[in-house]
């Protein structure tokens, strides 16, 4: 089918979503069919869905009831893509109008989330009024929210009443001593409370809220910010704890901390984790929990597919001028969803058939695997809509897949500034390309639709092989084709793993 083209040209920022996915080999193995069906069109909860479905956040919740050391409430910059940052605060009525406008212009829109810029449950009237109206006017749009959890127990019945199917809780710790290094204060029962006592109350409310949501059948994803030296060695315990209480997905995200952001961590020189550290921790937790790997850490006013942000197209003055036929828009969305769902079902059936054909053969002929089957290889993919689709120099992000004898699976994504975005930026091209190469340094292959000669040479010199021969092929097929070529060429002897990963 022809999906309406979503323009991926650079917009104000490469926004993202506080969600995760991995609907194939890794993330969703532990899920029941019932849960799979409930997340099938949620880009933040299903890795498959995030190639096809879009989401938006409406910034109706400005107030917050806690302070996190990675957040600065003063900051607002259109070029900055971080959770907690928005350009325009909306009233519930404005938010409803914006949601309906976006859902008419982008039929892939399946989810409306409220994520801030403060905490949705510190603004309960504004948050629930928005949900109430949308449930009436766009019943096909899923509603979800993302919260720090402090006020979850108090609002649990209201949440269930509004038919909110998915809730994300940010849980960075389950130990108040760790929490005291992340949260300087909370506002609780009419008082500002500092330090360890504040962290202990927050943790208690988060865990209680998680249990209450699960008891009501609401799906819970847990977000954690990986803060090196603060909670890195603690997050495995967080993962086990939230899984035991019934969270279905864990999304470990890297700390974003720059001195210019004015956050405690940024100003005090707390470093962010490297991509390799993040992946190692996610892999470590993956034994116990379904891990999300496709989160883009989007703004609280992000609009569009994960990895793009079309918010600038839907400012208040622009939506005011739009003429919208709501009924027709809903019909278009229904048609598109049915088509995507059929496409995905066909894709899964094909994968199942391939697995059934290939796997027994391997077991039969290589029972003890005397010869190693070939080591895993990380590949960066300039992707769009689940296929190898973008020009290397135009890509604002790369999906990172790990290809191995068991197949290709998404293990992360890397942001890149599109260095080839016009002549005026050419002076900076060199350093931007250098930054992109640095972000991809643990990958051995870059899959893209096209690539220029200069970046080709620079990538190859950095030990990353560009490959433009699989344009428009599904990502997993392209990655496995390249992996098998490398295997046949004798490039996948196991000892090289350590050298590249070191």
């Amino acid at each position, binding site marked *: 089918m022809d999906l309406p083209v979503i323009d991926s040209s650079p917009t104000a920022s490469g926004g993202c979503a506080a969600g995760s996915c991995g609907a194939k080999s890794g993330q969703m193995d532990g899920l029941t069919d019932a849960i799979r069906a409930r997340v099938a069109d949620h880009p933040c909860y299903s890795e498959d869905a995030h190639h096809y479905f879009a989401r938006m956040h409406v910034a109706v919740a*400005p*107030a*917050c*009831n806690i*302070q996190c*050391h990675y957040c*600065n*409430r*003063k900051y607002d910059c259109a070029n900055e893509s971080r959770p907690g940052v928005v350009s325009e*605060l909306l009233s519930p009525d404005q938010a409803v109008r914006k949601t309906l406008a976006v859902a008419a212009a982008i039929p892939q829109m399946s989810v409306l989330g409220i994520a801030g810029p*403060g905490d949705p449950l*510190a*603004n309960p*009237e504004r948050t629930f009024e928005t949900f109430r109206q949308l449930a009436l006017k766009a019943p096909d749009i899923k509603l979800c929210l993302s919260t720090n959890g402090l006020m979850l127990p108090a609002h649990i019945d209201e949440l269930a009443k509004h038919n909110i199917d998915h809730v994300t809780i940010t849980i960075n710790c389950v130990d108040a001593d760790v929490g005291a290094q992340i949260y*300087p*204060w909370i*506002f609780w029962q*009419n*008082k*500002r409370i500092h330090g360890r006592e504040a962290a202990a109350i927050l943790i208690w409310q988060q865990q209680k809220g998680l249990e209450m949501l699960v008891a009501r059948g609401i799906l819970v994803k847990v977000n954690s910010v990986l803060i090196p030296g603060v909670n890195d060695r603690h997050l495995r315990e967080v993962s086990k704890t939230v899984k035991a209480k019934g969270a279905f997905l864990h999304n470990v995200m890297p700390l974003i901390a720059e*001195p*210019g952001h*004015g956050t*405690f961590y940024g*100003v*005090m020189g707390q470093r962010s984790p490297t991509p390799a550290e993040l992946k190692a921790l996610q892999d470590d937790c993956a034994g116990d929990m379904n891990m999300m790997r496709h989160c883009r850490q989007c703004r609280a006013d992000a609009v569009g597919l994960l990895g793009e942000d079309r918010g600038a197209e839907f400012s208040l003055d622009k939506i005011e001028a739009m003429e919208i036929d709501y009924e027709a828009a809903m019909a278009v969305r229904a048609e598109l969803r049915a088509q995507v769902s059929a496409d995905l079902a066909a894709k899964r059936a094909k994968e199942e058939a391939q697995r059934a054909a290939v796997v027994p053969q391997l077991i039969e002929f290589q029972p003890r695997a005397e010869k190693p089957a070939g080591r895993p290889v990380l590949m960066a993919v300039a992707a769009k809509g689940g296929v190898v689709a973008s020009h290397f120099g135009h890509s604002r992000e790369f999906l990172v897949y790990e290809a191995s004898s068991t197949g290709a699976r998404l293990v992360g994504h890397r942001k890149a500034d599109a260095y080839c975005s016009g002549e005026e930026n050419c002076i900076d091209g060199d350093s931007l390309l250098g930054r992109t190469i640095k972000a991809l340094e643990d990958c051995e292959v870059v899959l893209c639709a096209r690539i220029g000669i200069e970046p080709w040479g620079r990538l190859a010199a950095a030990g990353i092989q560009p490959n433009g021969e699989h344009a428009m092929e599904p990502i997993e097929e392209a990655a496995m084709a390249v992996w098998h070529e490398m295997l046949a060429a004798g490039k996948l002897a196991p000892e090289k793993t350590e050298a590249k990963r070191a």
Partner: protein
Amino acid sequence: MALEIIESCVNCWACLPLCPNQAIIQAEPHFLIDAGKCTECIGEFRDAQCVSICPIEGAILDELGEALNPPGSLTGIPPGRWAAVRAEIAAR
């Protein structure tokens, strides 16, 4: 006897629903306190409610003009450190 919100307020709304006297006014460029209504929460709460949730250091003053959340008290960033970092960034 009244508190005052000054221009460093970021209009985050956190204080407005908490005020027991409905003394906080939504306004541009920043929120305001109606001095005629504000009681500083005396007799109602141990701490003034707006002061207890405000995330911005220095945005609310007492009647003597003193910041009720002084620099460093909310973020934990030592006063002077942020200024030094900003100066360093500006010099790049």
